[in-house]
């Protein structure tokens, strides 16, 4: 019953068809706030993916013994535990990124994507499929964060810095429009990206 095709489908679902940011439009707040740098997106994306996969697995495992009335508090306990694990681990091994992401790491707890997938998917489906769903959703989230980060960091600061090395630079002649790393830049980038995706989708459908 757990055919490979089905699992692949669950994984792929989060990447594009039901991409949490671009299609379901949940968990937007963190994505708009941290996408000022590619590195931020990488770390928050990996953190959220880890929490998504782990909490989906645990919730799917205990889905039959969870009393319906207290399922939400139980989900939150599971999610919050994994978030704290991410929080402590990142603080210990990546203090620079931890410092820059600040409050957004603990806020993964209330990221709608994670509770949403727990409620909509993991509490109704077997373990392997739930893990695939979590992984797909997490990677879908991370990809959008990185794409937005690339656009905003490159245009807003004139270069992309990863792990303290400059990867791409537009040269000193380029005067970066600072608005791109400020809040309006986040909305601009997000809206245009979504418009582009819709257009491509329409083309493909037609």
């Amino acid at each position, binding site marked *: 019953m757990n055919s490979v095709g089905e699992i692949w489908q669950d994984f792929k679902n989060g990447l594009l068809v039901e991409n949490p940011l671009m299609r379901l439009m949940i968990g937007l707040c963190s994505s708009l706030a941290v996408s000022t*740098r590619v590195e931020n997106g990488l770390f928050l994306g990996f953190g959220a993916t880890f929490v998504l996969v782990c909490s989906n697995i645990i919730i799917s495992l205990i889905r039959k013994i969870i009393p319906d009335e207290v399922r939400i*508090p*139980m989900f939150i*306990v599971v999610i919050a535990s994994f978030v*704290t*694990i991410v929080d402590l681990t990142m603080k210990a091994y990546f203090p620079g990124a931890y410092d820059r992401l600040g409050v957004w790491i603990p806020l993964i707890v209330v990221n709608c994507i994670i509770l949403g997938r727990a409620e909509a998917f993991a509490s109704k489906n077997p373990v392997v499929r739930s893990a695939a769903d979590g992984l797909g959703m997490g990677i879908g989230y991370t990809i959008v964060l990185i794409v937005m980060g690339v656009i905003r*960091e490159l245009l*807003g600061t004139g270069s992309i810095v990863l792990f303290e090395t400059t990867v791409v630079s537009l040269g000193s002649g380029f005067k970066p429009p600072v608005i791109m790393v400020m809040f309006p830049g986040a909305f601009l980038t997000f809206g245009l990206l979504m418009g582009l995706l819709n257009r491509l989708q329409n083309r493909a459908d037609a």
Partner: protein
Amino acid sequence: MRNGNIAKILKLVISLTVISVIAGGGLALTYAMTEKQIAKQAAEEETKSNKEAFPEAKKSDNFVARDDLTQKVHNEDKDVQKVYEVKVDGKRIGWVVQVAPRGYGGPIVFDVGINTKGEIVGVSVISIKETPGLGQNVMEPEFTDQFTGKMVNDNLKVGKDIDGLTGATISSDAMALGVKKALKAAEMLGGN
């Protein structure tokens, strides 16, 4: 009916208790595993920033945290967070004062190194939550180097004595204010 209700409530209580205990156990384990590493990172960060603020002192044990004096200056000015005595071969050559003035995105925490003559020898930012590409640039040497050599009676007005960063007035002002506070704290410490 009543018995059914009690059984139901018990079931809810037990499920919540069990999951909380398991989660608590898991967290305790993670905490125990990361605790040392976190403390080590914090200490390294502190030493690194101290050395940047006071380049003349090269070893980590050149910096002695003076909690007694910290208390004294902190009571005078809440933005002054920590005081280190800089000692080379048992002789004091200056202070490192950690300040945390309010910037645009929260406090900007930074170290200011001040020698016994009362001159600034270095400024090193520890934690900053300003806008990237804008306020965050106050941590670059092009900005912080402007404070080198300044003394407590020097004017530090941004736009006149210090070149502020375009579009980052609040962050620039906060840095200048923090430096001023550090200088005042060092003056107060004087020959202690």
